[in-house]
């Protein structure tokens, strides 16, 4: 029974959990580690599932907490080699870089400037399409905090875009 629940409710969340973690930790390897760790933890807690009102929100909450820990631990470590430093990068060659990609990477950089909470809210709302109530549950904050932070984050992005445009973006 628990395996069925896991397969139908937890496993399909992999991509969402990965994207959420990636938004916080900022690199694919750590995000992959986090997702696997979440899967293991949720599986080990299968006896508690009945008490979880929303298994998806719980998985997202665990993902966020582990990602924040991961990010914090990484900051505390002495300079690491960058991930995949010894592999050829999959980046496009200069002549392949389109203007559109450039704008997308600028948007990504703007997102990275947001505080973690605001970044997570944008991720959960604008990318994953969660309702405010679900976001409040995942982040364990009051509903009005979700709205305030979403408003601030969007205004920040808007101002950045307008500014970038005026500098020839």
């Amino acid at each position: 029974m628990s395996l069925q629940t896991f397969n139908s409710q937890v496993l399909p969340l992999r991509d969402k959990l990965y994207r959420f973690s990636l938004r916080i930790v900022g690199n694919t390897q750590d995000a992959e580690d986090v997702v696997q760790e979440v899967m293991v933890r949720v599986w080990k807690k299968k006896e508690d599932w009945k008490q979880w009102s929303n298994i998806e929100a719980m998985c997202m909450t665990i993902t966020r907490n582990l990602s924040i820990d991961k990010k914090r631990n990484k900051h505390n470590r002495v300079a690491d080699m960058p991930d995949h430093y010894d592999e050829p990068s999959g980046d496009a060659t200069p002549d392949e870089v389109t203007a559109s990609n450039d704008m997308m990477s600028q948007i990504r950089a703007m997102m990275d400037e947001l505080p973690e909470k605001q970044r997570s809210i944008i991720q959960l709302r604008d990318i994953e399409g969660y309702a405010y109530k679900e976001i409040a549950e995942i982040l364990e904050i009051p509903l009005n905090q979700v709205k305030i932070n979403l408003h601030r984050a969007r205004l920040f992005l808007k101002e950045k875009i307008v500014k970038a445009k005026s500098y020839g973006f």
Partner: protein
Amino acid sequence: MDSNQVRILLEKYWQGETSVVEESRLKAYFRSDDVAEELEQYRALFQFFDAEALIKFHPESKTPIVKSTTIRILSSAWVRGAAAAVVLALGIYFYMIPGQENIDMRDVTYIDTYESPELAYEEAKKALFYLSGKMNKGVSTAANSLDKMRTLDEIVNAN
């Protein structure tokens, strides 16, 4: 949707007052080819949201947990310190112990490094204890990783 409607909706969006449905309409508008010129600057933002939603989880490495554990072990300052100590100890052993410089390799089997067998035995025991201590630490780390892998296997094979 005409651009006036979009402008109103976009204003609601910046204020954080749009519904999920209204946000979908905005995304659809910015996906289309006829975006008003003054709104064009916001296209990249909504394209970014669309593109990010397509990212999938497909770890390239088969054993990411073991791999990352290995990296963590090798990068810890403690292990680097221990490795440096071993190198130093070996250096001292080979270069500082008197009488070692002129060893005739033909006689090597007849030369002892310690004066008494008891001392040699004690030193060898110490070295072996040190080695086994390190091995136990390594084995427990590997066992931890294996435990995680087994749980993952259990999940994957059950599919």
